[in-house]
């Protein structure tokens, strides 16, 4: 028999092994075997949304242990076709809002939220979203939000008419739809509502009743100057305060704990010499916060009109309450997205555009670990597990 012959020939080649007192053989290993993760992810873990530019319909979320240089990638969750992703530590669940076609690229369209178990990465449930209108865009956290104590989800729609679908995650059903003409992105606000940025520079705050219908709304005028100080879309959260940074480095905070967003005193990332023409924020997820409420902003020395997605080479650490630039971290190269873990010794997680992920000590700014491109091809959004 061929296999046995091969075995014999191979054995003859292994004759150098000592013949005296051989160890017992390695044990037979049980099959099938599928790994499980801790349901509560450690503080060094991060969810990395891989947009996967070269096959956008095959996006995924990588579960990554940034402390594990040997086995950083812990598993993948599907995030198909301009998907958006949310994570609930309390529910031990990951949520993806996706779009599918019956023939991959053509045929019948289905939009759905899938609920994934954090321990098994298996789907626990699915809620089909009606109308084929889920907003498809490069990943913004404001496309998809959890509200009402993570019991509900909001999904933004864009046809280009704008609206928000309200979903009861526990009951696995769609509650309704809120028209939101002229406004984009939603951010969980108050007990059961959201705030959204509108085309006239205002912010609208909406509260919902227990059926998902609008019970109140209020508008804050002129929260951003879309021409001269537009805000990056992905905020850094400090508790329930959302901090946004403008293309030119202005910091705007909104306390979203009450039913209506409350603007805080603006701050600035500060300045530094050496910019050509000047330092400005640049990248995709350009902001992060740490447990102390400090902000980390990815900065480009080549700031100009249109540079805001070019990535950055430094991270500036700012105290937004004291309006003080505390320190600068040299990233030794260009990065696209950043986040900061909630570890006892927090780490700045830096995603390069080629998928490489580097870890820096958030306090000292020293490079701690390089994970290589071991998790994602196009890492755009990174969410710490704690």
């Amino acid at each position, binding site marked *: 028999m061929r296999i046995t012959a091969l075995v014999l020939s191979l054995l003859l080649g292994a004759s150098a092994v000592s013949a005296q007192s051989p160890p017992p053989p390695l044990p037979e290993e049980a099959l099938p075997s599928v790994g499980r993760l801790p349901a509560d992810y450690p503080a060094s873990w991060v969810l990395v949304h891989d947009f996967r530019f070269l096959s956008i319909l095959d996006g995924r979320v990588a579960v990554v242990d940034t402390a594990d240089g040997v086995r950083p990638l812990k598993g993948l969750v599907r995030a198909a076709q301009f998907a958006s992703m949310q994570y609930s530590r309390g529910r031990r669940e990951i949520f993806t809002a996706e779009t599918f076609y019956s023939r991959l690229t053509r045929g019948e369209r289905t939009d759905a939220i899938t609920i994934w178990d954090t321990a098994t990465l298996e789907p626990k449930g699915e809620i089909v979203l009606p109308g084929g209108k889920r907003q498809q865009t490069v990943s913004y956290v404001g496309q998809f939000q959890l509200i009402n104590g993570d019991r509900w989800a909001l999904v933004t729609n864009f046809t*280009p008419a704008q609206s928000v679908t309200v979903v009861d995650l526990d009951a696995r059903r769609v509650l309704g739809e809120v028209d939101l003409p002229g406004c984009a992105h939603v951010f969980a606000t108050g007990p059961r509502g959201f705030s959204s940025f509108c085309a006239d520079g205002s912010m609208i705050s909406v509260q919902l009743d227990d059926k998902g219908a609008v019970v109140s709304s209020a508008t804050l005028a002129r929260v951003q100057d879309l021409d001269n100080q537009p805000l990056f879309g992905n905020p850094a959260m400090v508790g329930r305060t959302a901090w946004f940074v403008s293309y030119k480095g202005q910091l705007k905070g909104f306390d979203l704990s009450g039913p209506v967003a409350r603007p805080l005193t603006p701050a600035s990332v500060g300045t530094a010499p050496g910019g050509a023409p000047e330092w400005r924020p640049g990248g995709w997820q350009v902001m992060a916060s740490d447990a102390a409420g400090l902000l980390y902003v990815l900065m480009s020395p080549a700031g100009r*009109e249109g540079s805001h997605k070019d990535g950055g080479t430094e991270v500036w650490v700012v105290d937004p309450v004291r309006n003080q630039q505390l320190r600068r971290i040299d990233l030794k190269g260009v990065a696209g997205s950043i986040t900061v873990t909630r570890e006892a010794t927090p780490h700045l997680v830096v995603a390069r555009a080629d998928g490489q992920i580097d870890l820096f000590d958030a306090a000292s700014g020293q490079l701690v670990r390089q994970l290589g491109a071991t998790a994602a091809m196009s890492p755009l959004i990174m969410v710490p597990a704690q």
Partner: protein
Amino acid sequence: MSGIDRLTERFARRLARGTSRRSVLAVLGAAITGAGGFPLLPVARAASSAPGAPGSRPPMLSGNPQDPGDQASCDYWRYCAIDGFLCTCCGGTVNSCPPGTEMSPITWIGTCINAADGRAYVISYNDCCGVSSCGQCFCNRNEGDRPQARPQSNNDYNWCLGTQSSIYNCSVAAIVGVADKAK
């Protein structure tokens, strides 16, 4: 203003034909135009152009001295606000989609200067849809790009809307008018 207004009106009509949502009219003021494709950080150009070896393409010239430059290069004048895979590298041309795709009926508009005649042209960055990511010649230029709250100025949306499939393949850059010089 009048040139932009005429274009706006024409795209509004296309939008009205292409969609049936009751609330379309309510958002026309803000969302008449969308965005072509999606961004890749420019720092990722080299990575994204793999498997294409950078610089390996011969120049793709229009043959018309009044339309200068390499249409397979991100530096080509019409691409001043494009965001996506260039259809010129995907089986299409600078203004037509590859066979097998469907062109988005409405999309984002940019205004680019043609150095050859000094004019500002209004460029329509229509997406080609129904075939998966072309993967060739990614180009992202963000001059004038603004947050998604102003859709007509944001290039992160997938504008494969009003098409049979929302799967994104590549983006074209077609001349749809000359911007008026006088205000």
